[in-house]
């Protein structure tokens, strides 16, 4: 069943740029307790498994690569949290850096949210293939981006801030009124 018309502008999904989100890149050996504790101590969530993200509201940890995590925290606590992470890391060979202002985040909500993403990313977005808890770094059309599901009908997207306008326009185009294919919803 089509949901067109229920979102602003008649778009098939509701697309918003999320408010400023604190983001810290943490690189190092993810198997060491220093790195794990640095991440979990700030985000107050469990370490995610490979390809997963654990997020609660504006706190969380996302698995970016075998040696990189993205730690989410409230924007106004980033500076204190980076200091806290560096203290936890001590002499460990690791890097913690505030990337909040280098990134933009978007929310795509609605029954057709999967479809909007599926038009842009080379990712299997079937409801049984991509589920909440998973985290995926990929591309949206021509630029790198990462996304995960906040719940069954909401995607959160992170991209570089310099690509924010491009990604916004992409999402709006993919969600253009009347463009629902209803591939996943039948």
């Amino acid at each position, binding site marked *: 069943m089509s949901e067109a018309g229920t979102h602003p502008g008649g778009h098939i999904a509701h697309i918003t740029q999320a408010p400023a989100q604190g983001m810290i890149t943490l690189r190092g050996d993810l198997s060491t307790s220093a790195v794990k504790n640095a991440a979990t101590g700030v985000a107050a969530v469990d370490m995610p498994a*490979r*390809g997963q993200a654990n997020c609660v509201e504006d706190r969380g940890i996302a698995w970016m690569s075998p040696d990189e995590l993205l730690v989410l925290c409230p924007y106004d606590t980033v500076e204190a949290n980076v200091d806290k992470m560096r203290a936890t890391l001590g002499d460990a060979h690791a890097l913690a850096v505030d990337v909040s202002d280098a990134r933009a985040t978007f929310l795509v909500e609605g029954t057709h949210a999967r479809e909007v993403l599926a038009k842009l990313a*080379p990712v*299997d977005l079937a409801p049984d293939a991509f589920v909440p808890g998973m985290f995926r*770094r990929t591309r949206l059309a021509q630029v790198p981006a990462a996304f995960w599901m906040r719940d069954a009908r909401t995607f959160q997207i992170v991209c570089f801030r310099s690509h924010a306008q491009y990604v916004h326009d992409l999402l709006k185009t993919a969600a253009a009124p009347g463009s629902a294919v209803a591939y996943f919803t039948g």
Partner: protein
Amino acid sequence: MLTLTCPCCGVTAEETEFHAGGEAHLTRYGPGSDDTEFEGYLFMRENPKGVHFERWRHVYGCGKWFQVARCTVTLELFGAYPAQTTRPPQALQDTITAKRPGWSWNDIA
């Protein structure tokens, strides 16, 4: 179009999420090598019809390099393995032998 599975992050995606890095298992001749060796490293590449070994980078994903064995005729993928090896793993070579008896590539098999 190829569908690759990155051995570093476990993600399966089609080739546009990756970047091809050319032939695998090159020996890098540098200072001290003779002209023939250096020329071979710089210019001479395998151009097989069949089994081939390549380097790929998961450029839009985890960013890691890895290596892939595939067939240039059918685009079948035999497997992916870590970049930190100078030869394909024996298990992968056995898999290829089962599917393409008599194959050879450069000085392998």
